[in-house]
C-alpha cells in the first residue's frame, strides 16, 4: 500500500498534524499503538489544557476529544492497536514496518512521514539513583495510568522525586485517592513545574516541597520500605549530615521526559543532544527529506496547546511538501542557543522556503524575574524582547521576522538576566 503521508502516533501532535496535513487528494494514514486516539492526554484527567488554543480550560481527555472530533470525519485511514517497529528509506520512499493482530508484521510505503510518537519517562537507572531496587519505584506517569485508566493504586505511602508537573499532579491525585503523600523533592533550588501546580497540588494539601534535595538512599528487599533525602550544594553533591529518612512504600519519579524516537533501528537522522529529538528546520522537516517531526517526539513540551500549534504547522508543511513537490534544500542558517538558553528550535532556517517570520521555541537555563532575550546574527544584534518571570520549566516563544535576517551567518539567542 502506498501513501503520501503516514503519521506515526495519534496523540495531541499526530491529531493536530493530521488536521492540517489533510487534503482530499492525499492518501494519508495515521498509525496509533493504543486502542484509541488521544495519547497521553487520556490519562491527564486534570485541568489546564486548552487555555491558549481553545480559550477554555479543559481536562486532558476533553482536549483530546476536541482534537479527535476535528479529524474523525476526514477521509483518511486510521489504524489503532498498530505499532510501528522500523522505518527505512529507499530511493525516495519510506518503508514503514508495523504490526497488529490483524495483519501481523507488514510494510507500508509512504512519500513522507510525520513523527509524532511522543516521549517516554526518564528511568531510575538513567539518573543512577543509589540504593536497593525493590518493587514500588516507578515513573509518575506509569502510576498515573494505573490510577486513572485502570483504577489501581500503586502504594499507600508515597514520596515523589522531581517537582515537574507530572510529579506535582500525581502528588495531588494520590492524596485525593487516599494515599499518604509525604513530600516532593527537587534537586534544583526552584520547582520545575507550573506555579499554579505548586499551589493547587502541594500547598492545598500541605505536601512539603524539599528544594535542593535529592534521594541519597533507597531501602527495601521485595517492596520499598524507606528512602533517605539529602540536601545538595550548588554542584548538586549531597551534603553530609542533612539526611532525612522517610517510611514509604512507593517512590514516584518525575525526573524528565525523552523523545521516543529510538525504536526506528534502520533510519538515522540528525538529532540534538540538547533536546534528544531531531534537528529540524522551520518547516519541521528533519535531515531526512520527507521526514517531519513534531510534538514531544521532537522536543518536550509543557503545554499541550503548544504541541497542537507546532504540529498544525508541521502538518501544513508536510502537505506543502507533497502538493508542491518540496525540494530538500541544503543551504541553511544555523540557529544556536547562547548564554542562559538551553536549546532553541528550529535549529536550522531553510531560507529557500518562503516565510515572513519564524516562531522560535526555546527554554532558559536559569530563572529570571526580569530580563531580555537578545537575538544576534554574527556580531549584529537583530532583535530583543523583554522577558518577565521566565523559568526553565516553561517554554518561551519569540517571533523572528524574516526581514531582520540580513546575512547567512548563524543566528543565536541569549538571555540576559537583570533580576
Amino acid at each position, binding site marked *: 500500500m502506498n501513501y503520501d503521508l503516514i503519521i506515526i502516533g495519534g496523540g495531541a501532535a499526530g491529531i493536530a498534524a493530521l488536521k492540517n496535513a489533510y487534503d482530499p487528494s492525499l492518501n494519508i494514514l495515521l498509525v496509533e*499503538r493504543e486502542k484509541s486516539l488521544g495519547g497521553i492526554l487520556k490519562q491527564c484527567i486534570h485541568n489546564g489544557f486548552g487555555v491558549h488554543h481553545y480559550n477554555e480550560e479543559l481536562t486532558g481527555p476533553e482536549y483530546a476529544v476536541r482534537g479527535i472530533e476535528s479529524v474523525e470525519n476526514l477521509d483518511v485511514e486510521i489504524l489503532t*492497536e498498530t*505499532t510501528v*517497529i522500523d522505518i527505512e528509506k529507499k530511493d525516495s520512499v519510506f518503508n514503514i514496518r508495523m*504490526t*497488529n*493482530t*490483524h*495483519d*501481523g*508484521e507488514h510494510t507500508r510505503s509512504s512519500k513522507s512521514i510525520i513523527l509524532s510518537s511522543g516521549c*517516554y*519517562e526518564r*528511568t*531510575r*537507572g*538513567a539518573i*543512577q*539513583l*543509589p*540504593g*536497593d*531496587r*525493590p*518493587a*514500588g519505584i*516507578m*515513573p509518575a*506517569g*506509569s502510576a498515573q*495510568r*494505573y*490510577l486513572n485508566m*485502570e*483504577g*489501581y*493504586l*500503586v*502504594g*499507600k505511602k508515597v514520596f515523589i522525586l522531581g517537582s515537574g508537573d507530572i510529579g506535582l499532579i500525581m502528588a495531588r491525585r494520590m492524596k485525593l*485517592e487516599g494515599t499518604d503523600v509525604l513530600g516532593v523533592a527537587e534537586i534544583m533550588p526552584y520547582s520545575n513545574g507550573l506555579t499554579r501546580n505548586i499551589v493547587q497540588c502541594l500547598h492545598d494539601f500541605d505536601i512539603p516541597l524539599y528544594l535542593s534535595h535529592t534521594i*541519597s*538512599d*533507597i*531501602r527495601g*528487599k*521485595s*517492596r520499598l520500605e524507606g528512602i533517605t533525602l539529602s540536601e545538595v550544594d550548588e554542584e548538586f553533591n*549531597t551534603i553530609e549530615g542533612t539526611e532525612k529518612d522517610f517510611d514509604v*512504600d*512507593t517512590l514516584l519519579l518525575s525526573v524528565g521526559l525523552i523523545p*521516543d524516537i*529510538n*525504536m526506528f533501528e534502520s533510519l538515522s537522522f540528525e538529532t540534538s543532544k540538547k533536546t534528544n529529538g531531531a534537528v529540524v528546520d522551520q518547516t519541521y522537516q528533519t535531515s531526512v527529506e520527507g521526514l517531519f517531526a513534531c510534538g514531544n517526539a521532537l522536543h518536550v513540551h509543557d503545554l499541550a496547546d503548544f504541541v497542537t500549534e507546532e504540529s498544525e504547522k508541521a502538518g501544513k508543511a508536510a502537505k506543502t511538501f507533497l502538493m508542491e513537490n518540496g525540494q530538500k534544500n541544503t543551504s541553511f542558517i544555523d540557529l544556536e542557543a547562547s548564554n542562559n538558553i538551553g536549546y532553541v528550535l528550529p535549529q536550522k532556517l531553510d531560507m529557500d522556503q518562503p516565510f515572513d517570520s519564524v516562531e522560535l521555541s526555546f527554554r532558559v537555563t536559569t530563572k529570571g524575574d526580569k530580563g531580555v532575550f537578545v537575538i544576534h546574527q554574527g556580531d549584529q544584534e537583530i532583535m530583543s524582547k523583554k522577558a518577565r518571570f521566565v523559568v526553565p520549566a516553561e517554554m518561551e516563544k519569540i517571533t523572528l521576522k524574516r526581514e531582520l535576517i540580513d546575512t547567512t551567518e548563524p543566528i543565536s539567542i541569549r538571555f540576559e538576566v537583570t533580576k
Partner: protein
Amino acid sequence: MYDYIIIGAGVVGTAIARELMKYDVSALMIEKENDVCNHASLANSAIVHSGHDPKPGTLKAKLNVEGNRLYEELEDTLDIPLLKNGAFVVAQSEAEEKRLKSLYERALENGVKDCSILDREEALKREPNLNSKVTMVLDLPTTKVTYPWEVTLANAENAIENGLEFKKSTEVTQIEKTDDVFTVTTSEGTHYKTRSIINAAGAFTGVIAAMIEEHPKFEITPRRGEYFVIDRHAKGFINHTLYPVPSEKGKGILIVPQVHGETLIGPSSEFQDDPENIDNTKDGLSKVRKGATKLTDKIPFNKVIRTFTGVRASSTHKDFFIQESEEVKNLIHVAGIDSPGLSAAPAIAKYVVNTLIKANTDLRDNPSFNPRRKGIKLFNQMTDEEKKEAFRYDPRHGNLICKCEKVTEADIVHAINRNVPGDTVKGIKKRSRAGAGICQGGYCEHNVIHLIAREKNKPVTKVEYYDEGSYILKSETKVKQ
C-alpha cells in the same frame, strides 16, 4: 526417597542437575527464591572467560578452560546465545606490560588457545576507541559473552524435561543424617529424604554446610560488584571485552559488550557481610566509572539505562571449593564459586559427576536422556518467513507489548508457560526481554502484569515484580469493601 537433592538453582546447580539427569537417578532441585537464577547467576558480567588468569593447576584454571570449550557445544545443544567477540587485556605502562607478559605465560600454561601479544598499533587498529595510552595488549580470542539467565534456564528446563523435580520458593531449614539417609527439611515443613546432597547454594553454601557439619572447611566471604548497563542503541564504541591488567583484588573493572547489544561496565569489588545486599552506592558506581574510563574515554554514560549489583560467593579459599564433605559422606560442596564460575559451570558439573560422584557410585546411563533444549524463539529473532508462519499460527504475535525490545504478546505467553514458568515481571524480562530496553518497562509493564494475571488466573494486585511479595499494584480504587 531421592538419589540426589541439589540445593540451589543458579547456573552451577542447574548445570549439575542436568548432568545428573544423563544417568538413571532420581533428583530434586530446591531453590529458596521464586525462580531459577536469582542471585549471583543473575548479576554478573556474562563473560565466558578464556581461562587466562587463574593459577595453573587449580580447579579454576582447569574448569574455566574446559568450560569455555564446552560452551561452544552447548550453544547449539541448549540453544543459548554466544557472542564470540574475543577480549583484550590492556596494559598502559611498562610495569603493566611486565605483568601482562606473565599473564600471557599463564594463559599458555593453562592451555588457552590462540592467545597472543599485540603491540599498540595493532591493538588500536582493532579497537580504535582504546585509551591511546595503551602500550600492549593480550589478545584472547576464545573469550565469549553469553546470557547467563538463558544458560541457567536452559540447564533447568532440559534437566526437568529429563526427569528432574524442581521446587522453587522452598528454603532448606534443616539437614539431618541417619545411617545413609539425609532428611532435608524445608520452609514449607516438608521432609525430603535423599542419599546424597549437592550443596550449590551460592552465597548460602556456608549456611547449608553448618546445618550438618561440626566444622565446615570453608566460609563464604560475600564480595559485591556494581555495574552500569549502557543501552544497546549506543553499542559499537567498544567491540572486544576489555580487561585491565588484573590485580590481587581480581580481574578489575571491565567493559563488556553483551549478546543483545547492551554494554556492561563493571564490576567493582568490595567485601560485605550481608550476602543479599545488592544495593547500588554512589561510591561504588563512582569507582566503576573511574576504573572503566581508564580503558577508554568513549563510554556514553549518558546512555545508562540501569545500574545493578551482583554478590559473588567468594570463600576463604582462593580456588573453587568443590569436594565431598570430610565429615559427612555423600554431601558434596560446590562452594566459593566466584569468577570464573559462569565460564566453568558446565565443566564444574562434569567434574562433580564424573570425578567426585563416580569415584564412589556406579551411575547407569539414562537411555532416554535428551540433551537438546530449544528456547523460546522470540518473534524478533525469526526470519520473515518464520514470522509469517508464527503469526498465522498465533495472531498474538501481532500484538507488540515491549516496543523497545520488540517483544510480542505470544512471546510473553510462551515465557509464562515454560516448564520453569516466568510468572513475575522480572521473570518475563529474563525469558523474553520485555522491559530490558531503554524505557525499562515504562511502556510495557502494565501489559506484562495483565498478561501474567490472565495466564496465571490471579488478580493483578498479586502479580510480583521480582521476589516473593514484591507486588506492584497495592489495591483497586473505588471498590467499596
